[in-house]
């Protein structure tokens, strides 16, 4: 048998190394041709979704009693109506001014809004603390800014609930199914042992519809749009009206704005 020389051994090694490099390249090309998913052409897209709640319009339209947005959201997403407040699950609800904005400590400038109900929901923060603490990446940030939950991955550890400074998350302490009056057959429920929250209606955005709360508000108090679009509806309102955000001092960069 021919003795292998150092030179031919190195050559052979070089060829083998090239072969290893070729496999990932070929795989990448192979995958490209098998692309099998796409989006609805009508889907709404943005760089960063934001919501503006005009509280003046909300109160003028009966903000104390009107619950249209809450009902629409909770029906759309099969959110259970659990009477025991300790176990309650909520995606969008009302909170008195003092609770929603505890950092606004100006003595008399806010006399007019003290004690009034504010509509609160997940802020879909740009620096979302819930995303950072989730150990399974069940909560994650979409490219369009929505802080989304993958309930398949949620292990119910509730780190996200501890991390969220807005209390926007609810835990299913019990099976939610018996507490859902009108099941929306087009949307799943959740199960006992997972955390849930507002998803900014990604399932509606995917087919070109606005979020359910925005559509349901009979007083036009809710606006929705791309914060990065300088000519968009959201930016127009932010330019012309005085708005506040919840706990901006925490640096979470919430994307829900309030006109007061």
């Amino acid at each position, binding site marked *: 048998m021919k003795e292998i020389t150092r030179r031919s051994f190195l050559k052979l090694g070089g060829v083998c190394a090239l072969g290893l490099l070729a496999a990932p390249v070929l795989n990448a090309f192979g995958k490209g041709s098998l*692309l*099998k*998913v*796409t*989006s*609805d052409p009508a*889907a709404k897209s943005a760089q960063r979704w934001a919501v503006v709640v005009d509280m003046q319009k909300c109160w003028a339209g009966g903000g104390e009693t009107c619950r249209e947005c809450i009902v629409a959201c909770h029906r759309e997403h*099969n959110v259970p109506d659990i009477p025991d407040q300790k176990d309650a699950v909520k995606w969008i609800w009302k909170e008195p001014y003092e609770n929603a904005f505890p950092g606004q400590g100006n003595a008399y400038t806010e006399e007019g809004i003290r004690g009034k109900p504010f509509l609160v929901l997940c802020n879909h923060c740009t620096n979302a603390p819930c995303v950072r603490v989730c150990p399974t990446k069940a909560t*994650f940030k*979409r*490219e*369009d800014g929505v802080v*989304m939950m*993958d*309930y*398949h991955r949620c292990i119910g550890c509730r780190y996200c609930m501890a991390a969220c400074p807005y209390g926007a998350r609810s835990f299913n302490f019990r099976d939610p199914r018996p507490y859902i009056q009108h*099941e929306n*057959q*087009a*949307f*799943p*429920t*959740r*199960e006992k042992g997972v955390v849930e929250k507002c998803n900014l209606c*990604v399932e509606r955005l*995917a*087919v070109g519809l606005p979020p359910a709360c925005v559509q349901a508000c009979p007083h036009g108090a809710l606006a929705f749009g791309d914060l990065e679009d300088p000519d968009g509806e959201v930016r127009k309102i932010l330019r012309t009206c005085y708005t506040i955000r919840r706990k901006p001092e925490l640096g979470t960069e919430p994307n829900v704005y309030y006109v007061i």
Partner: protein
Amino acid sequence: MRDTSKIAIGLVVFVVLVTFPFWYGAGKRAEPPVPSLDTPVIQGLEEKKCIEDTGFMREYHMQLLGDWRNWVVRDGKTVYVASDGKEYVMSLQNTCLRCHSNKSQFCDSCHHYAGVDPDCWSCHLAPEEPAPEEGAK
């Protein structure tokens, strides 16, 4: 060695118990399941074909559903382009169960036979049976 008989009896009992499943089931056969395709929507189809061909669906539906879940939930893609070019909205509740509205006759028949218990239905809503047609939008 005065315990020989006791040991022998014990051994016989042990062997009989251990081999019980084999001789109990000998000669019998468990009928393989026949998933029912008899739903109003499927009956109304011109071409009775799932989104991919039957062999693929039978073998890979679980991988396909897992991919659908990841594409929809994590990537925000909602439309599946089948190998024949047709497009389908990726949704267990709204696409699969629209045709296969008979979960107990379709999904469950095989899953029970195979002894698998997927936990889809703790969150996803199955259409009410036997109410025909209803449940899908």
